[in-house]
């Protein structure tokens, strides 16, 4: 039996990129001097400026947050300081992070329903604001302007009803709109409704 060995050939080709072998490239001196010039320029500029333009020394200087900044949640109050929330569960339904836990209970008065437990796990919260969008009662808001607090234990990041209501203020929003809603609707036509 005859065996022939064939030289292995590959069809793959390697494209060789020529690199210019100039003296300047070899010595790298030009690049080094250029680089030093750039850093030196920045150094002297910044020394003359005393304070870099972009840095904000946080605790002393603060950025002004935009009006629609989303901070920690808060639960709004009724006029009698009870919670506005009626435990409709729209916010946990809308929440993409599943960070809201509500257990409903019956109230003795005309409000009929309120949350017995209202907990937000601020570590899970992705600060998307969908809960606020979903709320039909102006009960939950994120306009506190507060940051998440530093916590030692994960449980501490779960804010309960008391914590959330502590930040709340009274809201007198009327479900279905203010009495003069018709004029406003005329001036600002809502594209969702005919």
């Amino acid at each position, binding site marked *: 039996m005859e065996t022939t060995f064939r030289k292995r050939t590959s069809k793959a080709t390697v494209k060789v990129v020529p690199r210019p072998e100039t003296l300047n490239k070899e010595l790298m001196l030009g690049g080094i001097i250029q680089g030093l010039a750039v850093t030196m320029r920045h150094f002297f500029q910044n020394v003359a400026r005393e304070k870099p333009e972009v840095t904000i020394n946080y605790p002393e200087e603060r950025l002004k947050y935009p009006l629609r900044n989303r901070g920690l949640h808060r639960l709004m109050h009724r006029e009698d300081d009870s919670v506005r929330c*009626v*435990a*409709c*569960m*729209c916010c946990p*339904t809308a929440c993409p992070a599943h960070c809201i836990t509500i257990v*409903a*209970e*019956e109230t003795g008065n*005309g409000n*009929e*329903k309120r949350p017995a437990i209202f907990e937000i796990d601020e570590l899970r919260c992705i600060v998307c604001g969908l809960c606020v969008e979903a709320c*039909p*009662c102006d009960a939950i808001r994120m306009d506190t302007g507060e940051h998440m607090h530093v916590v030692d234990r994960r449980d501490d990041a779960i804010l309960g009803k008391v914590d959330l209501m502590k930040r709340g203020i009274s809201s007198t929003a009327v*479900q*279905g*709109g203010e*009495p003069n*809603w*018709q004029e406003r*609707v005329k001036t600002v036509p809502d594209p*969702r*409704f*005919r």
Partner: protein
Amino acid sequence: MAETPNPAPAQSTVTLKIDGQSVTVPKGTNVLEAARSLGVSISFFCYHPGLSSPAVCRQCLVEVKGQPKPVPSCYTPCADNMDVLTQSEKALTVRQQMLEFTLVNHPVDCPICDKAGECTLQKLYVEWDSAHARMDYEKVHKPKKVDLGPTIVLDAERCILCTRCIRVCDEVAHDHQLEMSYRGDRETISVAPGKQLDNPYSLNTVDVCPVGALTAKDFRFQMRAWELMTTSSVCAGCATGCNDEIHHARGEIYRLVPRENQDVNKFWMCDDGRMTYHEIRQNRVAGARVQGETVPLDKALSFAADRIVALRGSSGSSGLLGVVANAQATNEDNYLLLKVASALGVDRVYLAGRPARPDCADDILRHADMNPNTAGARAIAQALMPGKAKGVPQLAADLEGGALKALWILGDHVDLDEEAQAALARLEVCIYQTPHQNFLSDKVNVLLPAAAWAEVDGTFTNAKGLVQRIRRAVEPPGEARPHRELIQLLGRKLGIALDYPNVRMLFKEMKQAVPEFAAAEYGRELPVVQLRFAGSRG
């Protein structure tokens, strides 16, 4: 009734045109049903296919050519050559106006209302109207949170006075407990004088209510409807086997609601059956126990198998072993147990279950036999071990007489008296696979955790002999597993080759072995549906 069961040919059908499409229906069918059979949807509140049609809500108005005024389709019987327009501008306008009229005094407190998400009014508003209210003045206030009876709360403001609940009491429970009072915009639903809403079918009023006026105390504020998942199953409360939907969310069952089956329960279900879901998570056995100590499942199975093998060596092939089939367990579980028993040469077979309660029975739906699968268990025992199956009294007698040394009990209900229980405790080995702890669980020396009925797939055979599917809705707790898996594991340890990776294979084999199941089909798997995508159930 919607459809007459056996329409006689020729003169008993009519042919009419709905939206230009020709349709032939039995005589007496109303226009609404005829339209539905064509797939044309007409909105309605007061009509219910299982109840009479009073045509009070006027939400199903359609235009009939030749008639000057729109007619309520639910109340208009089909006639030959009728030309019905359901989507004409006139019909749509009147329906939309009726909807706005219905909404005039509705409080629109959907955030609070439990019906939100499965509410017909809400759905129709979103589909048809979606406009701001034109009412600028105060709505009529009516009593809220009216206690109608032990199970139901009424919110009269939300009520749209469709009278479905009144008709359910009258026509299903045959007990006139609700009626209308006052007139005009003060009109409300109230209980009849000297009565309260306490009939055994009262919760059907909640199901039929198209809005959130009637709410079940049991379900009130527990969970929002749109969060619920539905699994189609069969009620395990009695031998009727009402078809139901298990509504569950995140591994917890929140309620059982009836599912339409014209052969069994039509549209209804009794209150007792609806409450059976509470038992599922109570007193559960989550881990195996051998002589009172919690051990891993495998260890408990080995212990039981070793004891049985030892007994069979010492006292003959049957080993004085008895098996107890149970009418609470599915057909598949019972079949597998008896199959293992006959492979072991066991000739003592008993049939247990909950005791009958004739006081709970009526001729509507409720059955005296409180077990969902008595007929099935009997049929299987008859097919596999003809003439050998005995009742519980015989079991008690055998126990006390010392005819048994080992016992293998399926299911949780075995009605034994004190003496028989004491005799049970003296057995060499007593395997008891059960979902729930009860008086027997401390007496036996091998306790195996089993899954409850809402946690398994399988079939029940109801009193009429219908084989019906039940489906797994939630996961069993801890180490609990379906009966059939426990039997398989123990059977393998006893040297019997069993390999049923799923219930369908078991059912196929059972179908050939048991003549009663010859015509039965296992059915297809249904996806678990989230209620928020299922539309309204009102």
